[in-house]
């Protein structure tokens, strides 16, 4: 379980990006965090992952093996000289997994064995994300956080990705949090939405979120 109570956060001297935000995510949930650009969704995720410290409030988690899958367009450094296999093998070593075959199994599971000797910078967005998911699954996560998983991906890749996330949640019991812009897939898969707006957040249904969005934007439904 993940419990966030009265969380506030500001970058150095800046204004509060999140203010008095509370939420609770139970084991096995699939929560889509939604909201406009700059609303603080990614900051909330970084706080959950422990990459940032709250200005005030508390985050307590019983998840022991969180994993993070970054945006497919957010390739860390395309020039970095590392192969797919090396990324997975160094991850295995850091996680102190003694079984060397774990990397082969991770490659097979994501159907990327043929890419193992490719440089990471030579991959497409969809292939890169499969590598990041394989990397995340190496640690047998109990919580997986996806940051805008469909950004920059074609429809075919999206059609492959969301059933996989759904499978990880339903069949393997992994709690899933996605930062979402793709409401079609999120509404189809997530058990609930968490709408971050003006530094605060609340749970809602996809229908309620669309209503709130239309009210805030005077009926402009381009984003939706």
């Amino acid at each position, binding site marked *: 379980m993940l419990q966030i109570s009265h969380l506030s956060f500001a970058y150095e001297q800046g204004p509060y990006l999140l203010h008095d935000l509370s939420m609770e995510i139970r084991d096995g949930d699939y929560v889509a965090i939604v909201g406009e650009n700059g609303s603080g969704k990614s900051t909330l995720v*970084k706080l959950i*992952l*422990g*990459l940032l410290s709250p200005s005030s409030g508390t985050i307590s988690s019983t998840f022991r093996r*969180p*994993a*993070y899958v*970054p945006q497919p367009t957010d390739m*860390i*450094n395309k*020039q*970095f*000289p*590392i*192969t797919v*296999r*090396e*990324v997975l*093998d*160094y*991850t295995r*070593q*850091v*996680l102190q997994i003694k079984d060397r075959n774990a990397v082969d199994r991770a490659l097979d599971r994501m159907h990327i064995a043929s890419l193992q*000797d490719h*440089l990471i910078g030579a991959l497409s967005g969809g292939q890169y994300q499969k590598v990041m998911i394989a*990397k995340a699954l190496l*640690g047998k996560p109990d919580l997986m956080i996806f940051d805008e998983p469909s950004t920059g991906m074609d429809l075919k890749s999206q059609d492959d990705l969301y059933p996989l996330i759904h499978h990880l949640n339903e069949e393997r019991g992994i709690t899933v949090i996605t930062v979402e812009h793709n409401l079609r897939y999120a509404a189809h898969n997530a058990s609930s939405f968490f709408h971050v707006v003006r530094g605060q957040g609340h749970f809602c249904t996809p229908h309620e979120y669309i209503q709130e969005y239309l009210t805030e934007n005077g009926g402009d439904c381009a984003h939706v």
Partner: protein
Amino acid sequence: MFDYAFMRNAFLISLLISLICPLIGTFLVLRRYSMIGDALSHASLAGVATGLLFHANPIISAFCLTSFFGLLIEVLREKFRRYAELTLVIVLSLSVGIAITIISSGLVHANVDFFLFGSILTVSQGEVTTVAILTVVSLLTIFGLFPQLVLLSFDEDGARILGVKARAINYIFSILVAATISVSIRIVGILVISSLIALPVATALQLRQGFKKTMALAVFFSFLDVMAGLLASYYIGAAPGGITAIVSVLLLLLVIFFQSCSQKREVPHAQS
């Protein structure tokens, strides 16, 4: 030329330098910390000057003070997150200030030029031992922390989520950079150490290989650079640091040239 003891000492140290510099350099370049290597190499002059002042082993004193300045950069980088380059100016001002004060005061009765430009004539057996110990300890540390260092360089946030203790490893890494610079001072010289740390890696990166192959290629190019400097120094009497720097730049340009030629040849082939 290996009949001379000084050449055997110089060759041994050159061999160790050509191994350790590109190993550390690969992480420095990929983490975009090349300028930190440059700043610390200049900062090591303060260590050399202090060692000469107190008649201590200048390599040991350079290691101690460069480690201190490396840790200071790490501490200041957390303080000045948005102006990271400012930390280099602070450390350079302090270290070079100390060095200039000691050297210009006339308290040091030794030739600092050997440390600025590198020299093969004045390497003692004791210094070979010091360099060997520092190199072996550095190599063991690098290989002990290898997967953590690679993942921190590739994706620092991702590594932190996996449980890598980034801050502690960054501090250890600063000390490794200090050790690398200290062992390189005698042969390459303070002024051009950064070329040996960064340029063989830049040359290896042009060949677009995986991590381990890139590192191995960087060691190979570094070996060529250092040996060219050593041979030129023996035959024409110039300081080895200068030749090493020139060869490392020429080798980089040569590889860039051949790479661009081979890419041009591939384009019509791919279209046909």
